């Protein structure tokens, strides 16, 4: 009986299992396998290279810079986005006139595909674009933004936060709304420093969605590609050359697919390491 059930279940599961195996798991395994091979011109076809691709990468200056840029970007963008999303979630769950409308305006950019946002911001950041128009209005000097080695990462972070903060805020709003209304109202009305109270009462109660947002945001930021490819091509001087873009150029511009596979493996390993670290940290201070 149980065996028959298994067969029927398998029939229902088969299409999805084939998809997941062929389109997710096999390529992941193939990346690992291929990363140990190299193309040989002498012998034709591929030959086993051991860790050769990895040592090539580690001794490559551009790759090392790319790792550094990616780590710097990760350390900056994630705390900024999580803190801003949380503060906005707190702000937009207060009873205030128009809160629903203002909240909707913050969420709107999540409908814009990342590549389309990148195209929009490429115009905003032009020397004669909207960003410098705003600075001029405020009496501030024009800035180079994407063409400056020091401003390129902050400029990307502003753009990515415009896209992402509304999305992460949704999870935190859902979490805050799980907190009983009386608790929130009591915290709010309890005299001095309502914001401080709000944060000290609400923060511990939304730990789970907050942890989820931190981890999911970190993963998505480690995979940022479209803005780099569209806005900066990794420049100037490699200062926005995030790993995902470096993998792409290595595979298609440089054409070394095996080294690119090794870099994919490193990128995924780095992602897992950072996420594992975050989990430990979050559990640690509980």
């Amino acid at each position, binding site marked *: 009986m*149980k065996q028959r*059930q*298994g067969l*029927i*279940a*398998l*029939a*229902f*599961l088969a*299409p*999805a*299992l084939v*998809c*997941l195996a062929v*389109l*997710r*798991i096999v*390529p992941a395994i193939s990346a690992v396998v291929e990363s140990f091979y190299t193309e040989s011109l002498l012998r034709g076809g591929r030959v086993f290279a051991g860790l050769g691709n990895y040592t090539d990468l580690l001794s490559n200056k551009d790759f090392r810079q790319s790792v550094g840029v990616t780590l710097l970007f990760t350390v900056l963008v994630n705390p900024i986005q999580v803190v801003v999303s949380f503060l*906005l979630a707190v*702000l937009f769950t*207060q009873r*205030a*006139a*128009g*809160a629903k*409308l*203002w909240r909707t*305006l*913050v969420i*709107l*950019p999540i409908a*814009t*595909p*990342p*590549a389309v946002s990148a*195209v*929009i911001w*490429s*115009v905003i950041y032009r020397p004669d*674009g*909207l960003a410098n*128009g705003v600075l*001029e*209005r405020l009496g501030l000097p024009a800035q180079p933004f994407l063409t400056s080695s020091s401003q390129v990462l902050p400029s990307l972070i502003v753009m990515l936060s*415009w896209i992402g903060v*509304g999305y992460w805020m949704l*999870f935190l709003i*859902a979490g805050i709304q*799980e907190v009983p209304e009386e608790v929130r109202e009591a915290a709010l009305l309890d005299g001095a420093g309502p914001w401080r109270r709000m944060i000290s009462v609400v923060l511990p109660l939304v730990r789970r*969605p907050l942890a*989820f947002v931190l981890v999911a945001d970190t993963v998505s930021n480690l995979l940022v590609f*479209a803005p780099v490819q*569209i806005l900066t091509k990794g420049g100037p001087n490699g200062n926005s050359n995030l790993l*995902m873009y470096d*993998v*792409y150029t290595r595979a298609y511009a440089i054409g070394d*697919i095996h080294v690119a596979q090794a870099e*994919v493996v490193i990128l*995924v390993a780095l*992602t897992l390491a950072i996420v594992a670290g975050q989990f430990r940290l979050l559990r640690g201070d509980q």
Partner: protein
Amino acid sequence: MKRASLSVLGGAVGILFFLPLLWVVTNSLRPGSETFANLSPLSWQTFLELRPTLTNYSALLNSAIGRATLNSILVSAATVVIGLAVCATAAFGLAAFQFRGRGLVFGIVVLSFLVPFDAIAIPLSTMFRDWHLTNTFAGLVLPGIGNGMAIFLLRQFFLGIPAELVEAGRLDGLGWFGVFRWIYLPLSKPALIGAGLMLFLFQWQAYVWPLLIGTDAKHILGPVALSNLQGQNFTDYGLVFAGAVVLTVIPLVVIAGFQRYFVQSVSSTGLK
């Protein structure tokens, strides 16, 4: 008093987020030659156009972006229909049956969404090249249909359907597919819509994959076509902005139409 200041603060933040989009919409309604005309100095005309024209939008119809947008709609729609069929049957297989290895199968599902798709896009694209799927609609749709997260979401919902209903259906002579089709599916509308949205947005927002696998004129998708246009020397920004508006409004309408389910699926993936 305090509520009023919260309201002002919220309004300021909301408008700040909205300004770039407003600027894009405004410039999509004026000729491309005027895109940079109202920026120095900034004035209300930067963000409002009193004599709007739809010429950019009519030009869009005959441009590469028009065709690409239709491709995006086609690919996303196919992904949602096929993907829902594949994911819902799988979720039913996981939720309705007791069998040895169920834990293992569920583990594979979870594992598959822990590996981020963009990271494996490059190895997968070399496989697709060998299989001659480059520049085909099948090549664009396939990666979207087996979505571990959608299976997970549907399974959670299916687990809540009482076993008595299934037994009653079986006694009435329904086969297992009948149970799935006539009992599970009708009861699971919210979860199906949530999963459908997930499949749709995955495909609509995709960039890395369509860039790797479908860039010829017949198969190019909206975001790729738009970024190609932006990279040219003499760009008509009126056209670019009109394209950006169309590519944003379509998912916006879909999300707004199913807003309740969108927020539900978002919050349940975050909390459970």
